[in-house]
């Protein structure tokens, strides 16, 4: 079957009103799940599973893909409006989205988030349909050293996150890397830095830490300062108009870069949307003409994060469909559901059941387009909450943080970790450390150490040899240059002054 046939075949699925209706329902459900803190994309897909039991395979695939894509986008709504990342991959969205909301530009931030999510999702869907086998082969040829080099490149942003406080940002990032070491080591499961606590053996769960450092810290800050939100006493309707064409045109290359990077990262096993959004945010900070504006509330930051995390959803589908290897946790849940429906995942899918591949593609395209309209409606409902006085909103955020942390693993320990992370976030802020750098270290730490250890063993303890591969070597050189450049340039600037 040619690509065109797959294309036509895929969209013919939506001629069935039942399937079309199910997609709309899936988008509503997925966006709301994604927006709720503690309900990850994996959990959203798992919660969506029961709906598919009575469905035929194609509507089931279409439904689950729609839930998956829209849950990643839904996470941006609460990230922008309340600084609560609904899903971990929306954490970088808070860096610029929340300051924009505080300035009364919630509408623009949401518009950028939803629009760039759609673009990222569409690009990755096209990549999935046209380049699945090639992309999978390319991704599978990546060695642990290459993946380490990619994550190290993500860490190279550290010196750029706050150019005025390089040392403090570096300390924050290193502290995040250290927190990622808590629990069992990735190779031999030896316990480290648990201080005898049984609750820390499994390591620090990402969602409670994110919720604590972003949402709880913010409420505590508001408690101290009682700063009124920009649109606290608005009429309640937050305008979610899309940004102007000029603004979109200004970020066209950013969207292209983040779509490609997000798709590739999504394909890599074990990476996923969270790593993709952090990496793209970091690379765009480096490439930007005005890196100092990142984190202050600019559309570039929101677009980078949201394009990448949605592009990763399509990327994750590539190895799942063409090799039967899930790219992440949510893809693994989807895999079990698809196998239950009799889908033969792997190289023979395109030969024996091409209609399933085309249905997945069509679902991703339709979801990413419809999602903008549906999510704007849902965002408007969520945005009404901004009009609620903070004396009501603050306690609700605290309770959502508690339930969100608990719901991840049904663990009280996670709630305690969230509360402590909230207080640590406050101390970080008071000491002028950088919470974004800490989270970056925490997110990339596990994957960084795991791949470094593997590469070290494979290369028989030859560290130089590890980076003799072209991909790893080139990326490491670029990363070191990116890491050191702000330090050198600030040194020369001081000397000149």
């Amino acid at each position: 079957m040619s690509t065109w046939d797959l294309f036509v075949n895929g969209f013919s699925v939506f001629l069935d009103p039942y399937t079309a209706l199910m997609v709309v329902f899936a988008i509503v459900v997925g966006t709301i799940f994604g927006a709720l803190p503690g309900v990850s994309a994996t959990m959203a897909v798992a919660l969506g599973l029961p709906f598919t039991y009575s469905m035929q395979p194609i509507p089931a695939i279409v439904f689950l893909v729609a839930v998956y894509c829209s849950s990643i986008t839904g996470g941006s709504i609460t990230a922008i409006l309340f600084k609560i990342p609904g899903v971990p991959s929306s954490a970088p969205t808070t860096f610029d989205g929340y300051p924009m909301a505080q300035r009364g530009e919630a509408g623009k931030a949401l518009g950028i988030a939803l629009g760039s999510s759609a673009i990222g999702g569409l690009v990755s869907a096209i990549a999935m349909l046209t380049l699945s086998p090639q992309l999978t082969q390319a991704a599978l040829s990546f060695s642990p050293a290459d993946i380490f080099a990619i994550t190290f490149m993500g860490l190279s942003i550290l010196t750029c996150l706050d150019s005025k406080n390089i040392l403090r940002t570096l300390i924050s990032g290193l502290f995040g890397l250290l927190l990622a070491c808590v629990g069992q080591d990735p190779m031999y499961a030896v316990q480290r830095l648990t201080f005898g606590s049984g609750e820390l053996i499994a390591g620090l769960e990402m969602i409670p830490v994110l919720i604590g450092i972003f949402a709880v810290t913010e409420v505590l800050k508001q408690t101290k300062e009682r700063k009124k939100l920009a649109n606290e006493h608005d009429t309640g309707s937050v305008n979610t108009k899309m940004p102007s064409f000029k603004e979109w045109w200004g970020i066209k290359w950013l969207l292209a870069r983040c779509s490609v990077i997000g798709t590739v990262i999504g394909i890599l096993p074990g990476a996923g949307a969270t790593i993709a959004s952090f990496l793209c945010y970091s690379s765009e900070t480096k490439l930007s003409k005005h890196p100092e504006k990142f984190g202050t509330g600019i559309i570039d930051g929101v677009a980078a994060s949201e394009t990448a995390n949605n592009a990763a959803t399509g990327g994750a589908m590539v190895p799942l469909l063409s090799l039967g290897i899930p790219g992440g946790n949510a893809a693994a849940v989807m895999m079990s559901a698809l196998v239950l429906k009799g889908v033969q995942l792997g190289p023979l899918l395109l030969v024996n059941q091409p209609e399933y591949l085309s249905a997945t593609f069509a679902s991703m395209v339709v979801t990413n387009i419809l999602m903008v309209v549906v999510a704007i409606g849902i965002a408007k409902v969520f945005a009404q909450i901004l009009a609620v006085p903070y004396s009501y909103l603050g306690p609700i955020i605290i309770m959502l943080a508690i339930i969100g942390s608990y719901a991840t693993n049904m663990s009280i320990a996670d709630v305690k970790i969230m509360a402590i992370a909230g207080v640590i976030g406050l101390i970080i802020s008071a000491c002028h450390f950088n919470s974004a750098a800490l989270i970056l270290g925490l997110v990339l730490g596990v994957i960084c150490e795991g791949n470094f250890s593997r590469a070290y063993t494979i290369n028989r303890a030859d560290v130089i040899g590890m980076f003799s591969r072209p991909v790893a070597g080139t990326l490491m050189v670029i990363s070191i240059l990116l890491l050191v450049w702000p330090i050198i340039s600030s040194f020369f600037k001081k000397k000149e002054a």
Partner: protein
Amino acid sequence: MFELICNVLLWLGLLYAYCFNVLEAPIPERTARNPYTLKPDVWPKAIIILLLICIAINIINIIRKNKNNPEFKLDALMSIRARLCIGIALVLAASFILEPLGYMPTCVLVLFFYGLLLGQTHVIRLAVFSVLVTIVLYVVFSVLLSVNLPRGTIPELRNFALYVESIVASVKSAIM
């Protein structure tokens, strides 16, 4: 001063972790003998060493910057507002009472007292709001999303939670 104290405490804590707590269990013998594996303590120890160096430089920078600053005294610690301290205490308390009291009492208490802390003066309205939001969140997470919210360990409160769950289950079965 607060920043300096935090940095010094962090430095000391990291030194303690480096000396005593990086590894909680011995490295398996086979791993220890294998020269081609990265030992489990190498990565965290490398990070701690870098952190110790960076924090030491940061401490020196803070002292140097504030050498002639008259406000750089322990008094600065007093500027931490009482309201913030109560807020921190409430958040920490909520995380600790969730297990014994369960979801519903914790939610009502947090919503009510944090609302008061944030300056809400209408006590009755706040109480009604606390109960209503508790119910809404319960319906969303427990009923719709099937999240098993904590029931509490105190027998009376646990029985109450079970009673509510039985009502929800009967309503659900009636609808189905």
